[in-house]
């Protein structure tokens, strides 16, 4: 066999432990078949930030010599399998500054497999995923994105189910017996083995053709060299920003074009402007300065800057004025206020439909004992 690379794309911190379990599980399972491997996180993602997409990798090779080509690297140039443990990542991954938004399938080889955990169908997800010029497979493991935090792990077996699908989609990596042996040895839990087995049977795989997917052209940035970079470690500040384009009033801060942060979002605030009392709290308390002040004094969450933390919903004193909605319900980052201004009735209808999709997901720890209640539902 040649070297096989697997990447796990996940939400920083929330899914770190899970990603680590997956990449470690891959190497340990391959080891059971006498192969060698390494597991590592992308160094640039560390220290991880809550929600910001991050990557970990597992590389498996036949022997040490073959593995050498994959060591002392930050990330492989291509992978056989990409695992995305949150379907909102299908819209793209912007981890760190000037890399820009990258397609979730960017590193995937021809005929490689993208595994996504989702309650959606392939047909629903593919429009979010950037087109690729080669065919690949999309494998879906039914389930919600599993989020926990740094200290308390939500042990809902998502990690095992991801591992369980691998002998199906990449049998050259390792077979089910090796995986089961590794899980038993590392986690000493028969239930986990069962989760992996079920996933092997249930994973749904579909071929994605080169013309399928989102036509968006990903961001590109040419990095200047030492002769054109400013000396003295200087970069120019962000300009102050100003009025809304085409209006006399309002204020829209200028925003850094090189890091937009919106792929961090798994939920987005939807604002019912008809209910808004202009109390300022969403605008004032937003850590990402994402609310534009509209010419008529409303606060419009700018979807290029919003990372979906939910503080605006939490501080809003009016019931259902700001509602966090699952990110996968949206196709673009258009201004809600502009939509509302143009067609208030149309907006009301749109809003009513959107806020049906209130989060089934949680962004981590709410109170002690919370995960114990959630875990059963996920394992089935």
């Amino acid at each position, binding site marked *: 066999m040649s070297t096989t690379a697997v990447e796990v794309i996940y939400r920083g911190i929330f899914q770190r432990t899970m990603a680590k379990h997956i990449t470690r599980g891959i190497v340990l399972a391959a080891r059971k078949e006498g192969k060698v491997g390494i597991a590592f996180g992308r160094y640039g993602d560390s220290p991880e930030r809550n929600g910001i997409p991050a990557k970990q990798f597992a590389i498996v090779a036949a022997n040490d010599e073959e593995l050498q080509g994959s060591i002392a690297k930050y990330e492989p140039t291509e992978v056989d399998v990409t695992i995305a443990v949150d379907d909102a990542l299908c819209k793209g991954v912007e981890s760190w500054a000037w890399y820009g938004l990258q397609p979730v399938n960017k590193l995937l080889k021809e005929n490689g497999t993208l595994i996504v955990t989702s309650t959606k169908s392939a047909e629903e997800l593919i429009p979010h995923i950037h087109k690729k010029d080669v065919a690949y497979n999309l494998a879906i493991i039914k389930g919600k994105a599993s989020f926990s935090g740094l200290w308390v792990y939500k042990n809902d077996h998502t990690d095992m189910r991801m591992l369980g699908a691998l002998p199906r989609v990449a049998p050259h990596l390792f077979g089910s017996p090796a995986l089961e042996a590794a899980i038993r040895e590392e986690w000493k839990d028969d239930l986990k083995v069962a989760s992996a087995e079920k996933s092997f049977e249930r994973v749904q795989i579909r071929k994605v053709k080169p013309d399928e997917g989102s036509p968006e052209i990903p961001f590109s940035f040419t990095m200047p060299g030492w002769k054109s970079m400013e000396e003295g470690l200087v970069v120019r500040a962000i300009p102050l920003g100003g009025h809304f384009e085409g209006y006399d009033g309002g204020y829209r801060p200028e925003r*850094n074009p090189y890091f937009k942060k919106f792929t961090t979002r798994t939920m987005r605030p939807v604002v019912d402007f008809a209910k808004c009392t202009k109390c300022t709290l969403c605008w004032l308390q*937003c850590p990402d300065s994402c609310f534009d002040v509209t010419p008529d004094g409303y606060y419009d969450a700018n979807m290029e800057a919003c990372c979906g933390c939910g503080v605006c919903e939490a501080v809003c004193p009016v019931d259902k004025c700001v509602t966090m909605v699952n990110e996968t319900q949206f196709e673009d980052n258009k201004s809600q206020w502009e939509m509302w201004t143009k067609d208030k009735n149309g907006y009301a209808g749109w809003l009513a439909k959107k806020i049906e999709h209130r989060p089934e997901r949680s962004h981590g720890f709410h109170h002690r004992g919370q995960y114990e209640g959630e875990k059963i539902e996920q394992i089935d």
Partner: protein
Amino acid sequence: MTAQANALEIQKLDAFKGVKKVTIEEYFTSGHRTCQGCESALVMKLMVKASGPRTIVLGSTGCMYVANTTYYTTPWVVPWMHTQLGSSGSAALGTAAGLKVLMRKGKMKKEPINVIAFCGDGGGVDMGLSAISATLMHPQYNLLILCYDNESYANTDIQVSGASPWGANTTFSPPGKKYRIMHTRWKKNVAGMLAAGHPGCRYVATVCASYALDMMNKVRKALSIGGPTFIHSFDPCPKGWDYDPMYSHELGELAIEAGIFPLYEVEDMKLKFYGKTKKIVEGRLKRKPVRDYLLRQGRFAHFTDEDTDYFQKKTDEMWEKWILPGVIPLRPEDGA
């Protein structure tokens, strides 16, 4: 003539009278890579909103450097410069001294420019304390040092600091099979210490961005009172404390309501409590049990009832035994 003469003019920054009067412009926008619900990023935003455009910000190493200010993706509208982890005091001092002398000597246009240096709790409560202390003793320089305290070395991946609360799980104090509690130090009382021990400093305040207007107005007062000033900001940290980011605001409020972090300002050595802390001090608000606060965070998930009781007892002491409740723990020998 004393060498302290020729203090520069300072900016006149009156308190914002209500949220509607708050500056609309942002001087800290996007481009930063902080966590969802990062309260410290909010502190940065409010801090420069309060100070306005004629401000220079010096940022110590920490989250608000590494996550916040990345090459080519700066979020800063105002001039900003990195400084070392333990250098917030020196950075503010050097900048203020440079501006002062250049203006005095006619090498730079005379105008009041705000100088703000920020540090995290690692930079303020641990490593940089000595330089902050020294800087607060130079009344001839106008500057503000703001310590954004998220109660750990959050940037380096949540290691225990002198500001971490007793018992908290951090990567340097993980609960284990033998010891459940690895972090056995009580949180250092840095604002109280700096306020009490620095006759050169006219203003020390504690703030929490859950109360944004109060927080900004303390910044404005700190910048317009003259001389070196210090603000200690209590910043819930969804990553290190392990909670859903949408609760950043609420956990800040809970900490105040439970009496864990008191809100006060010390102006010319006169102590004034404000907000809910004032109500607690005046007996108009009963402190919430610390349990309500602790059990909302993954970092205390390993606590037993005995641990939360101990935490409660130590918090009660702050209010019941300290000579100045929540601020100064001294008490007369015959008191008790």
